[in-house]
């Protein structure tokens, strides 16, 4: 019997799950971290840098929840501030200059909702990423590792392809938030998890993601992912910048269900 949405949500949030940092270690060789947005500061909720994936230089941008309690606090539990998104965009533009593909690893409950985040333009920072990623002239692949929380995830997911690990979720709002707003009852989180269609299977059926990366056998997940990424980046690199941007635009252009009267 398939796992229920709520079980997958809990697995996706499990702090014992490998985080962005571990995926970078396992997927890349020669990784060097590059920090700062050159505007305000360096956001530890997002790690960026360059490494080699199967020998190919790639820019990697990963949301990082932190590995132990201190690290988690330092990384704001993986909820970025605007400077995190601005760092990500800076590194994507740099990738474009040097014609490197971009790999984004998503793992966040959402963009941070706090006073400082608002003061520094959280909405503006996300909006700018959406616009600029749409026309970035190099291949972008996004993989959702754990939780893909709303606009805070989308700001790293305007990609040519979006993949999900088997036990990850991707949602417009947290099921708790949805239950609170719609039903004034956070306890109805299970129901909300199912209703929102947040599981990889649901999202594949809706056409919102291209691939699900199996997590069994556990020892193979990094190698499998690495092989899939190398294969797909190689295929995408054969496209012209116009074809890449055109494909990305059409990918998002098709989303929406409505009646035309």
């Amino acid at each position, binding site marked *: 019997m398939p796992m229920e949405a709520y079980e997958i949500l809990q697995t996706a949030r499990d702090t014992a799950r490998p985080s962005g940092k571990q995926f970078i270690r396992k997927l890349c060789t020669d990784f060097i971290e590059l920090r700062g947005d050159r505007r305000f500061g360096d956001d530890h909720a997002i790690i960026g840098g360059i490494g080699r994936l199967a020998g190919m230089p790639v820019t990697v941008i990963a949301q990082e929840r932190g590995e132990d309690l201190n690290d988690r606090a330092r990384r704001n539990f993986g909820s970025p501030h605007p400077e995190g998104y601005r760092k990500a965009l800076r590194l994507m533009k740099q990738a474009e200059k040097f014609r490197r593909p971009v790999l984004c690893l998503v793992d966040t409950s959402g963009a941070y909702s706090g006073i400082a985040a608002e003061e520094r*333009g959280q909405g503006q920072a996300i*909006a700018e990423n959406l616009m600029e990623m749409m026309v970035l002239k190099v291949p972008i692949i996004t993989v959702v590792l754990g939780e893909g929380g709303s606009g805070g995830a989308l700001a790293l997911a*305007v990609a040519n392809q979006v993949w999900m690990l088997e036990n990850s979720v991707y949602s417009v709002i947290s099921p708790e938030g949805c239950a609170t707003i719609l039903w004034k009852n956070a306890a109805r989180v299970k129901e909300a998890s199912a209703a929102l269609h947040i599981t990889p299977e649901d999202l594949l059926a809706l056409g919102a993601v291209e691939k699900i990366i199996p997590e069994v056998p556990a020892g193979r997940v990094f190698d499998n992912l690495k092989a899939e990424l190398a294969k797909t980046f190689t295929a995408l690199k054969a496209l012209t910048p116009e074809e890449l941007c055109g494909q990305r635009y059409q990918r998002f252009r098709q989303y929406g*269900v*409505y*009646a035309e009267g």
Partner: protein
Amino acid sequence: MPKFNFKKSRNRLEGLVNQLTQPSQPAPNVPDSLCVPCPGCEVMLFTSELAENLNVCPQCGHHFRLSAPQRIQLICDAGSFTPWDEGLASKDPLQFPGYAAKLRHSRLKTGGTEEVLCGAGSIAGTACAVFAMDQDFMMGSMGSVVGEKITRLFERATRERLPVVGFTLSGGARMQEGILSLMQMAKTSGAVKYHSEAGLLYITVLTDPTTGGVTASFGMEGDILLAEPGALIGFAGPRVIEQTMRQKLPKGFQKAEFLLEKGFLDAVIPRKRLKATLAHILRLHREEEPHADGSV
């Protein structure tokens, strides 16, 4: 003046007044009664007086919310507006509990129109594509219909080489459409970007309230960002931030004037000066000057 519950007193007053008179022309978003209390200064205002003053309180300058048709009427030259893509209607792609009923209810309330009115019109003689969002349809939340209409508007404006003037108002994403609602942020942003790359102007007027997915997409993507005085503009809503931070928010936080001070808006424009300001900016961006002497 004693503090009183706006909603409660409004309902009581409406009840009383409705027994005496039938409102001849109900104005959306301003209660259909003779008087309303101003949420800004609590003074009782005659609705007729308020309407004459563009629904701005003559005492304290509080800007009442306007409906999408009122917005269009406020800025477009008389008779110049032609709606686009009126026939688009929301569906219930995920069979989300309660959504179909909510859609039916909202349609009854608004008389069929959905959350955003799009079209072409002229502003002081300059042809534009125009959109205005409406609070009466599920608080202007962005689902497939908003995303599709806004995207089509920008695509058409790009083809027809028109500037875009848009009024945003939104409570955020239409969560009942799940991930499809989130995808509208990327879809609209792509269309705005291609319009921009064609060298065309997009002026955004952020109105009260603009939050969530609209702020984090086409709301903040204009070349020039204007807002109405006192408008609440943010990514996270104030209640969510209070819960996260476990503290009260400073006064004026996330208001238009606050964003102006932080560098996220170009200007805060009172409603009375809005059309003239838009006309001014549009004239400065005209591709050809009509007169050789520089006058327009």
